[in-house]
């Protein structure tokens, strides 16, 4: 790997269903930044970004299947590693 630290990103539609997801991402990823554009939010993070099911469930107050993210996901970059508990974007693998 070269010296430059690559960023990963996740773009979500900004709507009622994603509000809790975005808050959960904010809690779990202190290094992430949130850029609100019309109709959407673009979340960028150097290295890695994690969406944790447990945190999302706390935020939305119900059971949450991480694959529900597909409905409101606009785009992403980085390698995806997904299981039942977390979706991780990163450039290392």
């Amino acid at each position, binding site marked *: *790997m*070269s010296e*430059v630290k*690559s*960023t*990963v*990103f996740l*773009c979500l*539609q900004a709507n009622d269903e994603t509000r809790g997801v975005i808050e959960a991402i904010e809690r779990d990823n202190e290094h992430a930044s949130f850029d609100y*554009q*019309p*109709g*959407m939010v*673009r979340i960028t993070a150097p290295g890695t970004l994690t969406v944790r099911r447990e945190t999302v469930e706390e935020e939305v107050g119900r059971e949450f299947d991480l*694959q*529900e993210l*597909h*409905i*409101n*996901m*606009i*785009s*992403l*970059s*980085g*390698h*995806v*590693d*997904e*299981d*039942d508990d977390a979706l991780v974007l990163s*450039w290392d693998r």
Partner: protein
Amino acid sequence: MDIAVTKKKLGLKERYALMTRGLGWEPTYQSVDDVFPMDSFEGIKIHDWDAWEDPFRLTMDAYWKYQAEKERKLYAILDAFAQGNGHLTLSDARYINTVKLFINGLAPLEYMSHRGFAHIGRQFRGVGPRVACMMQSLDEMRHAQTQVHAISNYNRYYDGMANFRHHHTYLPYLQVPRSFFEDAASGGPFEFITAIGFAFEYVLTNLVFVPFISGAAYNGDMGAMTFGFSAQSDEARHMTLGLEVIKFMLEQDPDNLPIVQKWLNKWTWRGVRVLTLVAMMQDYMLPKRVMSWAEAWEIYFEENCGALFRDLARYGIVMPPCVEQVRKERDHLSHMAWCQFYQARGTNNFHVWLPSKEDMDWLSAKYPETFDQYYRPRFEYWAKMEEEGTPFEAATPPQQCQVCQIPTIFPVAGDPLTRAEHSCTHDGERFHFCSQWCQEIFEDEPEKYVQAKLGAHELYKGNLFGDADPTAEDFDPMAAAMAFLKLTPEDSGLHSDSRDAANFDLWRGLAKANEA
């Protein structure tokens, strides 16, 4: 009943293994090579298809469930937009021309992509990529359908959309995106998925759907915003699939490296050339702008593709050499394209206009190195000609590049006042190119690209006259060509003179007031 029901629900990884890998089988009365005859002729060597890992692990049952939900959401909004006369809430009637570009230029590509993925979903011998390609094929069909449905609400009121299939095939400017896809679809399965998964999905759709569709939202187009974001939610999966295939090829055999590098070089360039249309949409066609082309380029190409190429460096992949020229063209691209479309407005199926003083000030601020020096004087001169009642219009169709099919308008990289001229001879015939990179693509497979039918060139050859008789005494070649192209005077020309502009003002006026 004595069946135990306390068994734990399967985890995502086990479910994926059973419902994807578990669906494949070993053929017994035919050889595997005979069942999958097309995944080896390109020279790509795969030793272990089971090493394939699908990152999203989406199974068919979950796929149907989530896609159905996307559709329900989309159509609820489309209906509400149409029922509430949503087209009259747009920021400005000029915006509708971006919708025309979308239906004419992009929606037919979605359908071609559907066909391409159906084809390679049959041709890969690994069951993981086969299932992923089948899902993508279904997605692409959905995109074509939802785009046609969403935009049909505009076609009821405005010109330039009714003949989108015919125009996609024959209008010279639409041959640019069409030839991109035909080039990909006529390659083998690995080249197709590299072209579409990398150049189209990873580079291009991020720039089309994200900043542009966010722009649609900003301009009050709920319909386009919704189908755009809905489509892009599938693209996240598609680009992940494309990149997975690239890494898979590179990991399977070192002999694959030069082939993959060649494709990345080619398709980066092909993708960037198609993006010329998107650059122009973003800088000139959105009445309310979210970000400039140059800014979007920095985020989605420099940052995002930079990260990808740094990641692929471990396999020996390097940044394609054309990127240097692409960087030099970044601050010229949208301006050159809009100038070209303004001059050639007689053969467009959307309307054009000159940027206002405010538009030009925004462009100078976004392009301090280029706009005032090279483009503002031209627009001001053309504005003066319009005022004097003698608007400038090109009288002849331009020469097109044999590979990307864009008119050969591009300057020498780094020398904006000298037009680039590249040509070579094949089989006794001379072929012209916009750039060194298109020429290299041609020279690698000349038998393929000599078959290109370039609209402007076909016109001169007399192949665009339909049933008209060129030997008749009163034969009018331009009238015959326009009839064959199904291009009406209402479809083209200046926005300010258009029926669309007049109707939008009239209807918006009626929507805001009661008749006396």
